[in-house]
């Protein structure tokens, strides 16, 4: 049940209309950052106020909401945003990607492919991909107007000159529908291929920077690269220690002070679902708190 003290989804109706108009223009101009009158939210900038405002602008009583932070449903940011929407809207929430109609995310795209009935809302800290190359807004705006993206290629080239390969691993710039160079938010570049021709609508909200942008369904999203240094994603030698997945994004977790470590799926829903299906990784059941802890200790 929602808290009747607030309007549905916290924001007042005029604010929602303003956000909705910005979203529609963002969808009509794929990859272009639409300025919007971002509001003060009851959480600090940097905690997803942009994504929260976009979600508040689109959400309705029939929606099912999933919120993830770095792929996980059970981290602080995800839990507090999920609680915020439960309190202000009363909508049903889920941790299962395929059950959700709206997925709000910080820094990951779920491993489970999204459908065209779903909307993916990104929390974006710095929406301007050219910002660290050119600090002046007047200049970056002109660069976008003129499609002048040579500087971004220089940056990638300097990576190659210094490191021998493109060393950018997250926030990896993409070109949307052959026109705008766009910031995918700090997702790992592992997720970039999922953005290309994704059936779900992708909406991006940057609260502090006051920008909304969008990638419509089935839109070409190309990661910038060179013919002789083509774009490639991260790979791991290990499989997920819990579910044995070799095709998901893995987090490295330090598990003791003697150099012990494990690699686990960053997408908790994906990992849990695989374990439920019977996939077993090399460290499944050996961790503190799991059922077979004593057995594992005995072996160790």
């Amino acid at each position, binding site marked *: 049940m929602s808290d009747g003290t607030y309007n549905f989804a916290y924001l007042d109706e005029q604010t929602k209309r303003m956000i909705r*108009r910005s979203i*529609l223009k963002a969808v009509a*101009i794929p990859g272009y950052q639409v300025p919007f009158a971002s509001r003060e939210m009851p959480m600090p900038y940097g905690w997803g106020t942009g994504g929260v405002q976009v979600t508040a602008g689109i959400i309705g009583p029939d929606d099912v909401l999933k919120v993830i932070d770095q792929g996980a449903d059970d981290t602080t940011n995800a839990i507090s945003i999920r609680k915020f929407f439960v309190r202000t809207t009363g909508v049903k929430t889920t941790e299962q990607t395929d059950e959700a109609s709206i997925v709000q995310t910080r820094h990951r795209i779920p491993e489970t492919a999204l459908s065209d009935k779903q909307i993916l809302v990104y929390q974006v800290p710095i929406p301007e991909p050219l910002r660290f190359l050119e600090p002046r807004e007047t200049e970056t705006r002109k660069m976008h107007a003129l499609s002048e993206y040579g500087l971004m290629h220089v940056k990638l080239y300097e990576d190659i000159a210094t490191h021998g390969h493109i060393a950018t691993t997250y926030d990896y710039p993409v070109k949307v529908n052959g026109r705008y160079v766009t910031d995918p938010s700090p997702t790992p570049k592992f997720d970039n291929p999922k953005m290309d021709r994704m059936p779900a609508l992708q909406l991006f909200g940057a609260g502090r920077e006051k920008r909304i942008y969008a990638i419509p*369904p089935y839109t070409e999203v190309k990661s910038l690269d060179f013919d002789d240094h083509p774009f490639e994603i991260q790979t791991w030698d290990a499989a997920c220690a819990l579910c044995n997945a070799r095709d998901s994004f893995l987090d490295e977790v330090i598990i003791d002070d003697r150099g012990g470590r494990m690699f686990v799926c960053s997408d908790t829903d994906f990992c849990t679902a695989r374990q439920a299906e019977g996939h077993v990784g090399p460290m499944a059941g050996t961790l503190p708190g799991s059922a077979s802890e004593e057995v594992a200790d005995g072996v160790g």
Partner: protein
Amino acid sequence: MPVSAEAAALHPGFADPVFDAQRLFRAVLDAMSHPGRIVQLSDLPDAPLPLNRTAAAVCLTLADFDTPLWIDDQSAAAEAARRHLRFHCGCSLPEAHGEAVFAVATDPTTLPPLASFAQGSDEYPDRSATIVLQVDRLSNQAGVTLSGPGIEHKTALDAGPLPTDFWEQVRANGTLFPRGVDLVFAAADRLAALPRSIRVEV
């Protein structure tokens, strides 16, 4: 308290302003992110002529004091429609269509050239008009072929009545990208959208 004749003659707005606006917005968002898709609507409030219910509901959903709204019929007969929009949306109703953020064409055959509406600039292409065209005919049978962002392969769209050179104008609008106007086709209880990003083959 006595109710004036003018207030009594007003048509009601949304029965539930919060949830009806949200529902209508999602319909428009669905249409805008899947250009050519015909989205069915239900439970729309009545609207005074010459507005149709779909076009009026889109205005109630998106227009307010920040968005000058131009309506093509400036005649005295359309005063009820203007009063409806002024009262429920609180928007200004300029006579010059070039000033409008939203435009409603109750008779699209007399629509001024698309290029004469706000196009946005190269730096701010979002500062452009969204034009709502009231049409009798709206289907995915025959018509023009659409492709581009939001469309998996191709979609056919037929709408009318429209100006004879309308699709030629839409094609010219697309060549201005990222500048240009965005279109919403409002038929009885259904709508479709055509953003500037879409390629049109006649």
